[in-house]
């Protein structure tokens, strides 16, 4: 296809060639050019509707189906369903007719948010009738935090915040659409709107019993503005009928039939495939390559070198430069690039890095004199009067997300338009990147969101889109589908930083801490370095000091699932176990007493979580030899009195004499705040995250050797299988008096300290560095 195809006004439709379920998309330039692609079954991207929308989130079709636009990205955490539930709760439409679809990031570049979405109703995070006081932060839509004022507000999917940040305006969107549908019916019938109400998409005039449907009045509603949108109120949890119920995820039928269209599945007419090799040492680039050696390989078209992706487009991270080979099929491109000689220009200081010297530098940084983040009382004096001092040093490795779908993006650049198909947790950022790389304005960039084969942090935090846009920009008019091998996916991703921590406690003669000092260190660019220790101690000590240390390395670090919490919770909860053992006290009751001694706003909720989990687990009841229980607290925001998510888990773990770890059961006490939106999704997230962090505890690590990531496929970077799934996972929810912080990423972290403590209880061996596969766990 040529550029001309895109600008020919007489092309009135796109061709979709469906060969046995496969997808081929043709192009046309529509009047309103957003995502004018035929919508194949299983595709998720925004499509221009046949019926005029009621508002930017709601389209009601004549057949009564309701399109709900979703501004976040479905990663398996359930937003495809929960976002739709928040709109449908207020809309009062027939839930079985709801059809989610991604919101258009292009429209978001052109339109501002309706004024009625800009103010959060209610009085903060502890007001059940309100929106829950999300933090607006930086309103730059290409930033990494805050809620912008553009049409769909926050389109990024991060920090488990889709419900927390989006609920109030999604409920408002449903309510605004409902009220306008009622106004339209009232206008049609010539009756006062107060006499009209609706349920399940049916509108009733109460005095006469006359009815109509949303689908019949939707066109009129689209032309009927709301006279007082500022007066719209949203329902508190006590009035919810759909939200708070267990709803199956609406994308599941397409995901069990192979129909869901992921980024990797996109085919366009005339499309060429790109296989890539990036410099495996970050900061390195191509010195030379010899395309002549592969020029005649089957299907090969060309090679194109690309520079180190511009760091300012990818949150400052420095990856490598590389080279792509274009071919008719991806396998041809991949087979050819593997035969092509490439020499790298590698910064020698980066190539000199390895796990040992990185970890040694971080450990040394713990003695750097930095200003404490928290310094309560006088730790030094307390340590001088201690009856006993306990000190422990913990370490955790670099960890990638290793989502199952390798990075990919399909990009077509023409003279004044960019189309990008991919799964993406941050389409506003990708839109900006496309504009910066091509010089084409953001208003002419179309990000067509696909299903996403795992995310766990900006879809890998890597430059898949930026590489593909660069290559497509050099091949304008030809759609380019870039796909990484698994090995390239490990190179082109950011990592959870390697981390170390030294915790010290001064205990009195009864074993209670009179001082706790926590020093943690990560790469200086790592996010979340304050998690779990900031503000005030969760476990009371009259003297408390927390300091954040760091050093800078060349491995790009970013937001992996849970961000800072998984490592920091491992340190904190492990240390609490060690203190309880040193004090000769029960680790559950020891934690409980130390939380009770705090003045933290949510201490009652933390105690409740521990009590419920302990009771569920049969805490204290005898276990067979070789089996042990361990308890831990998981909290996010418990120190501040705003949003928080609080849970506790008890893990019952057995250890075979040959060192085989088995998590026999997990008892989970998890808060639901005022209410969860979709408890089924929350259950699924908890089940999955327990095993996610089991992998962190047991197997997963990425080492650095000669500046490169050493483990780069699933033969050496291990994923657990079904045989290691805990046979019993029991989950109980309890209500608290605040809105939750979300729970899609930092639950289940306690399995790390639980397994290490169970190993200690059973074998007497205390290991403080993960993963445990590196240690001898045998006992007799």
């Amino acid at each position, binding site marked *: 296809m040529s550029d001309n195809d895109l600008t020919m006004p007489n092309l009135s439709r796109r061709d979709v060639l469906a060969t046995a379920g496969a997808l081929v998309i043709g192009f046309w330039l529509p009047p309103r050019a957003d995502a004018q692609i035929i919508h194949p079954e299983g595709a998720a991207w925004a499509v221009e509707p046949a019926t005029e929308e009621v508002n930017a989130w709601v389209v009601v079709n004549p057949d009564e189906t309701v399109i709900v636009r979703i501004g976040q990205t479905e990663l*398996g955490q*359930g937003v495809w369903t929960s976002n739709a539930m928040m709109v449908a709760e207020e809309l009062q439409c027939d839930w079985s007719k709801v059809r989610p679809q991604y919101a258009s990031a292009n429209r978001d570049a052109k339109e501002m948010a309706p004024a009625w979405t800009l103010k959060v109703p209610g009085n903060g995070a502890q007001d059940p009738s309100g929106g829950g006081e999300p933090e607006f932060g930086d309103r730059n839509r290409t930033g990494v935090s805050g809620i912008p004022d553009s049409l769909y507000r926050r389109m990024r999917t991060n920090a488990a915040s889709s419900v927390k940040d989006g609920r109030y305006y999604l409920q408002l969107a449903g309510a605004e659409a409902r009220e306008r549908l009622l106004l339209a019916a009232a206008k049609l019938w010539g009756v006062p709107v107060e006499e009209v109400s609706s349920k399940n998409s049916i509108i009733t005039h109460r005095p006469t019993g006359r009815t109509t449907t949303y689908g019949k009045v939707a066109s009129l509603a689209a032309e009927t503005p709301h006279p007082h949108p500022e007066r719209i109120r949203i329902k508190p949890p006590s009035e919810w009928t759909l939200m708070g119920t267990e709803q199956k995820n609406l994308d599941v039928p397409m995901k069990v039939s192979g129909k869901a269209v*992921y980024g990797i599945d996109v*085919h366009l007419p005339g499309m060429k495939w790109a296989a890539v090799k990036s410099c495996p040492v970050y900061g390195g680039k191509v010195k030379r390559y010899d395309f002549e050696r592969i020029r005649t390989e089957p299907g090969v078209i060309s090679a194109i070198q690309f520079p180190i992706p511009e760091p300012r487009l990818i949150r400052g991270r420095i990856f490598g430069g590389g080279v792509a080979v274009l071919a008719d099929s991806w396998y041809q491109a991949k087979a050819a690039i593997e035969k092509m000689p490439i020499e790298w220009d590698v910064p020698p200081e980066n190539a000199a890095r390895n796990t040992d010297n990185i970890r040694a530098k971080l450990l040394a940084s713990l003695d750097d004199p930095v200003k404490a983040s928290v310094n309560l009382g006088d730790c030094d004096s307390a340590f001088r009067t201690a009856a006993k001092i306990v000190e422990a040093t913990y370490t955790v490795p670099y960890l990638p997300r290793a989502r199952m779908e390798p990075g990919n993006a399909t990009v077509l650049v023409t003279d004044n338009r960019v189309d990008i198909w991919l799964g993406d947790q941050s389409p506003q950022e990708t839109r900006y990147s496309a504009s910066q790389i091509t010089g084409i304005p953001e208003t002419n960039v179309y990000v067509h969101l696909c299903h996403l084969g795992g995310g766990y942090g900006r879809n890998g935090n890597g430059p898949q889109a930026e590489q593909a846009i660069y290559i497509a920009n050099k091949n304008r008019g030809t759609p380019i589908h870039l796909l990484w091998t698994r090995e390239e996916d490990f190179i082109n991703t950011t990592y959870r930083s390697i981390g170390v921590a030294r915790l010290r406690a001064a205990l009195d003669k009864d074993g209670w801490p009179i001082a706790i000092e926590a020093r943690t260190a990560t790469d200086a660019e790592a996010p979340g370095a304050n998690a779990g220790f900031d503000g005030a101690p969760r476990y009371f000590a009259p003297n408390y000091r927390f300091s954040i240390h760091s050093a800078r390395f060349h491995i790009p670090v970013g937001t992996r699932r849970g961000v800072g919490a998984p490592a920091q919770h491992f340190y904190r909860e492990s240390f609490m176990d060690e203190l309880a053992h040193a004090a000769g006290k029960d680790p559950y009751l020891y934690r409980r007493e130390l939380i009770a001694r705090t003045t933290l706003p949510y201490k009652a909720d933390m105690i409740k979580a521990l009590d419920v989990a302990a009771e569920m687990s049969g805490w204290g009841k005898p276990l067979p030899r070789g089996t042990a229980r361990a308890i831990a607290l998981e909290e996010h925001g418990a120190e501040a009195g705003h949003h928080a998510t609080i849970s506790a888990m008890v893990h019952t773990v057995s250890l075979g004499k040959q060192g085989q770890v088995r998590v026999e059961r997990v008892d989970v006490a998890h808060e639901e705040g005022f209410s969860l939106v979709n408890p089924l999704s929350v259950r699924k997230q908890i089940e999955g995250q327990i095993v996610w962090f089991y992998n962190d505890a047991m197997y997963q690590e990425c080492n650095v050797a000669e500046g490169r990531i050493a483990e780069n496929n699933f033969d050496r970077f291990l994923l657990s299988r079904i045989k290691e799934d805990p046979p019993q996972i029991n989950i109980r929810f309890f209500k608290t008096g605040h809105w939750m912080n979300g729970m899609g990423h930092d639950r289940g972290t306690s399995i790390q300290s639980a397994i290490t403590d169970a190993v200690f209880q059973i074998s007497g061996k205390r290991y403080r560095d993960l993963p445990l596969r590196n240690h001898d766990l045998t006992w007799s």
Partner: protein
Amino acid sequence: MDLSVNGVRHSVDVAPDTPLLWVIRDQLRLTGTKFSCGIAQCGACTVHIDGRPVRSCSVPVSAAAGKAVTTIEGLSPDGRHPVQLAWMELDVPQCGYCQSGMIMSVVALLKRHPNPTDADIDAEVTNACRCSTYHRIRQAIHVAAAKISTGGGSL
């Protein structure tokens, strides 16, 4: 080369050492079968050859010549194979990327063990799921087995 996929005969013009996966995805445009590791570790690319599960990223297309290949698209015409129904009942998928391969592995398991024990499942379902949906997968396998044994569909 002649290839039979989901009961349809195709003539494909590819190098015989091309992995079956890429013929299925790129030539036949059956994109339900996924690529993930490329080294037969994760199982996202699982399809059946003559009813037996294989990791199609590491099987040359020549090995499938003259045999019957089944992919997720060929499991049922309407997405209502008993394993798919059980998957929907338990709401198994999260991101869903591994689930085509997972379901194909489970169908193969149920062919060998119509009433699998947990030990059978542990031994034979070796696909990886990064969202770790294993808890629901195990329940769904038992539900699917019960459906089939009570006449609620066949493999």
